[in-house]
């Protein structure tokens, strides 16, 4: 019975876990209950991934109303891969959330943070799980609202302002998305994404379809922080509670990019649309700009979280570039990097969170020499940093290898130069952090800290390393996902 309903359970388990945690309140059971639910969820997503890879796309009709009339949940290889990523990272981080947040959030608000964290997980899983365009909007807003609350929950000045500005921009983005969905609904009378893909080609030349595509793209691009719509991301990642940022940086932009890929390739008939190729060209240009400008800004900053935030902007550029190539190899590279970057950035922000515990500062100066005092964190930081640069034997190398191969196939020679240039720049900013963290001259007192918070870091960094050494499973899944996404048999 669970097998048949696993697809929906993945979303409703965390969604129902949230009110239960609210009822349990401050008791310790709440945390363990959450950890239990999220672990079961992670196992379910692994099982679903195996199912999808063997028997193909899974479908589930809510309330037994057949699609396209009812809401349909649809799981394809890409969605299954992302669900594994979301559920696993959430399950790994949940047990340590309390410890990571202890310094910034008072115990009276801890459980509220936990509830918002679970809702965020549910929202992200929902975006991936659903096959209904309007449902994407609903889950996008569930995850966004929890994000705004989580950013502001520590009640720090800067975080409040960052959260408010993100709320304004994010809501504009979501509403743009809603306009786009509304226009295609008016045109076709359906909201089921697969049904839209069947009906939109008939109207692919109308102005309304073009405008709908633009609205949807801009709306999602805001959520995905594609340059130049990334401005909200920097203060949010710089001022939000440290433990929360690790989760946000790992997952929220990736899920938005998944939605972008879904709508560009799975809903709109890009090839038949007059603006289709222009849009892809523009996205490629923006991706190049993101890579170069993001990396340059990362070099210029001395606040480690801002460095990593700008680095995220650049890395989102790599993913966007792969998607905008719209070739099988390009989309494969994008999917691989989506997966890898989630683990890299998650572990890097976790490292910074632990290093900054106590001092509460995130400047290069304040982190000096801490790598020697906390060797496990230091090594994980090294692995993450090397992955970001793309050193062989780390997952980042695999991503860049596939991206450059895709660019060679598409004969985009200048953009290969840009990718390499951006990689060189990433060496500079990663070196800056590594140099400070392993600075020997500084004589800081050894600060005792709870070693158990190293567990999620070790796990995330291990995934990076493992993929760097043996990437065949990820690559074959990504290839299957990109084939499916581009509608190739």
């Amino acid at each position, binding site marked *: 019975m669970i097998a048949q309903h696993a697809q929906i359970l993945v979303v409703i388990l965390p969604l129902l876990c949230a009110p239960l945690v609210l009822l349990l309140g401050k008791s310790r059971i709440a945390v363990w209950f959450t950890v239990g639910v999220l672990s079961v969820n992670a196992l379910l997503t692994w099982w679903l991934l195996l199912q999808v890879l063997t028997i193909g796309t899974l479908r589930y009709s809510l309330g037994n109303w057949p699609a396209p009339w009812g809401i349909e949940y649809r799981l394809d290889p890409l969605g299954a891969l992302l669900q594994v990523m979301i559920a696993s990272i959430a399950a790994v981080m949940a047990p340590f959330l309390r410890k990571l947040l202890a310094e910034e959030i008072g115990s009276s608000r801890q459980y509220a943070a936990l509830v918002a964290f679970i809702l965020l997980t549910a929202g992200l899983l929902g975006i991936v799980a659903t096959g209904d365009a*309007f449902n994407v*909007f*609903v889950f996008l*807003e569930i995850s966004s*609202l929890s994000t*705004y*609350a989580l950013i*502001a929950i520590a*009640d720090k*000045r*800067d975080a*409040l*302002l*960052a*959260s*408010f500005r993100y*709320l*304004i921009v994010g*809501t*504009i983005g*979501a*509403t743009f998305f*809603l*306009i786009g969905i*509304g226009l295609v*609904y*008016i045109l076709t009378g359906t*909201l089921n994404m697969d049904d839209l893909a069947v009906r939109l080609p008939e109207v692919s030349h109308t102005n309304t379809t073009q405008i709908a595509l633009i609205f949807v793209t801009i709306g999602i691009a805001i959520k995905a922080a594609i340059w130049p719509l990334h401005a909200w991301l*920097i*203060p949010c990642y*710089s*001022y939000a509670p440290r433990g929360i940022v690790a989760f946000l940086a790992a997952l929220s932009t990736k899920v938005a990019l998944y939605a972008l890929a879904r709508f560009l390739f799975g809903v709109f008939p890009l090839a038949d649309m007059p603006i289709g190729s222009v849009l892809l060209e523009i996205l490629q240009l923006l991706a190049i700009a993101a890579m170069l400008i993001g990396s340059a800004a990362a070099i*210029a*900053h*001395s*606040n480690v*979280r*801002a460095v990593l*935030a700008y680095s995220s902007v650049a890395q989102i550029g790599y993913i966007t570039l792969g998607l905008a190539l719209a070739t099988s190899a390009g989309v494969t590279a994008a999917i691989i990097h989506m997966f890898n970057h989630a683990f890299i950035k998650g572990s890097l922000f976790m490292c910074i969170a632990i290093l900054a515990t106590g001092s509460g*500062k*995130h*400047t*290069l*100066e304040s982190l*000096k020499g801490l790598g020697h005092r906390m060797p496990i964190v230091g090594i994980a930081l090294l692995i993450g940093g090397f992955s970001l640069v793309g050193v062989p034997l780390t997952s980042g190398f695999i991503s860049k290898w596939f991206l450059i191969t895709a660019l060679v196939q598409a004969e985009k020679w200048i953009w290969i130069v840009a990718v390499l240039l951006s990689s060189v720049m990433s060496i500079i900013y990663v070196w*800056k952090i590594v140099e*400070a963290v392993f600075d020997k001259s500084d004589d800081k007192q050894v600060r005792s800290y709870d070693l158990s918070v190293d567990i999620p870091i070790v796990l995330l960094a291990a995934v990076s390393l493992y993929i760097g050494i043996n990437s065949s499973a990820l690559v074959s899944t990504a290839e299957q996902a990109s084939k499916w996404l581009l509608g190739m048999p």
Partner: protein
Amino acid sequence: MDSQLYNYWLVILLMMTGLYALIARGNLIRKIIGLNIFQVSVFMLYISAGFIREGAAPILSPNVDVYSNPLPHVLILTAIVVSVATTALGLALVIRIKAAFGSIDDDTLSYSSGDSATELSIKTQKSSQ
């Protein structure tokens, strides 16, 4: 221009009003009001699109053949809930911003320096070498 499509013009007018209020006003409360007007314009887009000429309200009745489309209303009910939640959260943030900064004028609010991410700090980079 098809005069029958005037609903779209009203939607566009409302949308631009909302966006203008959002961008032109520094006051955070006014920004939230602008955001609401902007969202309401989209609700109107959906609801007016659900109207069918000569169609009755979508309540089953033996005397009626043509009904308006009820689905957009249901969708927008959800969107309104989202909008209410967003507004509530936005207002809660404004209350706290007022407490923390003593102002709700966006032009006077800025991130604190020191541990700042927004300022370019090439100086500190030099000194750390």
